[in-house]
């Protein structure tokens, strides 16, 4: 795979195929690639997961640290999401300070998880107003073939699901060899993220890198279930074109369906 930009020829071909509900890999526009998940891939982490979406591979780990609460939430633990687009994962990624993509990816995963209320941060207080657990989710793409945000969100959710809280030793520091039980999570809520991409008048889900590069705009939604209702928790539009009201309504109809589909596939990890 070279790091060349998508050719106009490819873009035109994709535009035509999308308008006929076809794709290079014979999927329909809203079909997802096969999802494969492994949990507990790194035993030093409090929780971890590896996610494959087709050829896209992402590893996500959860670490926990003790620290002071944020002044605006003295009775809650903290959540931090970070991501690093390793040059290992794609010829597109380079060493050096994070570009916008590397900033946006963890922010979108953060918002999907935080706003869904999946992590019960109020149960992560050690000493009220003084000492709380900080949950740190680190995202590393290993092979980028598109849909990194959606893959990373799945990875983060599953890593959280198997995360265990470390012990605390006599001097008040974390004892990472001891485990004191599961991370407190809402039983009902596990968010997923779905990014719709637009090329011409067509919308697609779960693009490959090539499709993603050809597309003109993207909108990412975080969705979860809360009190038995589907809830959109986060949203961000990117790209140089617009989405029409009809398109947004269409996406709102598809999303619950896709949420159920992924939920069903990943049931044993959740």
């Amino acid at each position, binding site marked *: 795979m070279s790091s060349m930009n998508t050719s106009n020829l490819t873009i035109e071909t994709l535009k035509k195929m999308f308008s006929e509900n076809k794709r290079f890999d014979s999927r329909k526009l809203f079909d997802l690639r096969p999802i494969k998940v492994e949990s507990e891939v790194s035993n030093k982490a409090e929780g971890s997961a590896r996610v494959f979406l087709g050829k896209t591979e992402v590893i996500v780990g959860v670490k926990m640290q003790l620290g002071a609460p944020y002044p605006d939430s003295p009775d809650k633990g903290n959540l931090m999401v970070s991501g690093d687009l390793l040059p290992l994962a794609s010829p597109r990624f380079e060493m050096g300070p994070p570009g*916008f993509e590397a*900033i*946006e990816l963890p*922010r979108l995963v953060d*918002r999907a998880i935080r*706003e*869904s209320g999946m992590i019960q941060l109020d149960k992560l207080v050690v000493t009220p107003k003084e000492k709380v657990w900080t949950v740190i989710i680190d995202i590393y793409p290993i092979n980028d073939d598109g849909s990194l945000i959606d893959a990373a969100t799945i990875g983060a959710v599953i890593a959280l699901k198997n995360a265990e809280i470390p012990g605390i030793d006599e001097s008040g520091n974390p004892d990472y060899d001891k485990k004191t039980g599961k991370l407190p999570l809402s039983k009902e809520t596990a968010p997923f993220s779905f990014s719709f991409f637009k090329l011409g008048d067509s919308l697609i889900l779960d693009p490959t890198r090539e499709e993603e590069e050809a597309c003109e*705009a993207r*909108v990412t*939604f975080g*969705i979860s279930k*809360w009190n038995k*209702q*589907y*809830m*959109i*928790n*986060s*949203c*961000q*539009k*990117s*790209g*140089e*074109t*617009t*989405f*029409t*009201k009809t398109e*947004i*309504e269409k996406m*709102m*109809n598809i*999303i*619950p369906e896709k949420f159920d589909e992924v939920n069903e596939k990943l049931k044993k990890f959740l």
Partner: protein
Amino acid sequence: MAKESKETKRESGRKLTEMRPMMAKVGVIPNADGSAMFAFGNTVAIAAVYGPRQLHPQHMQNPSTGILRCNYDLLSFSVADRKKPGPSRRSQEISKVTQWALLPAVNLKEFPNTVIDVQIYIIQADAGTRTAGINAASMALAHAGIPMRDLICSISVGKLDKDLVVDLDKSEEDFEGGEGPTDFPIAKFASKDEYTLLQLDGKIQPDVVKKILDLADEACKEIYEVQKNALKAVVETKVAEK
């Protein structure tokens, strides 16, 4: 139930769909090719446009189109806890979504190899800063004479527990209880139902999204009038001066 909804009435006394008083002024920065101020109540944004001008470094130039660069930031004293000067991850993200919000409206193909720089700063913040910034920037672009398909209007629609609410202020953004606060900043073409900014934090049922877009459409009509009048005013003053 009725009692509950009374409790979630707005502190400011505004009706659920009532926006804060808006203010707009064009031509606030004489050095700039285009500039404007836009305020939603206590949130005040200023924007300057420089360009189209030659882009340096040269290797960033694009011979098939001009490029649009946006920078959004808060002045350090515009918020309760002083904001450390310089870009943060938040401001970098807002800069980028602002660029995406404005891009569909600007015809950059007419200016190959050039850059149009949009600089947005918040003087006073009381929530809705990105939307105020986009409204100001859209006027500044028009004021700079950049060919545009339409003006961009931007508004934040929110949900406080179950009530849909237009133009949240900071106290409402920090609302707690029920389904919590949801903030849904939206930008669109003034005269078409095409959306250029969609962002959201909170909890919203998929079937409520359409209602939110409808509320944003109504609000944007009012914003458009304010923007249009401010742009007209600057032209009329110029004519009068001659």
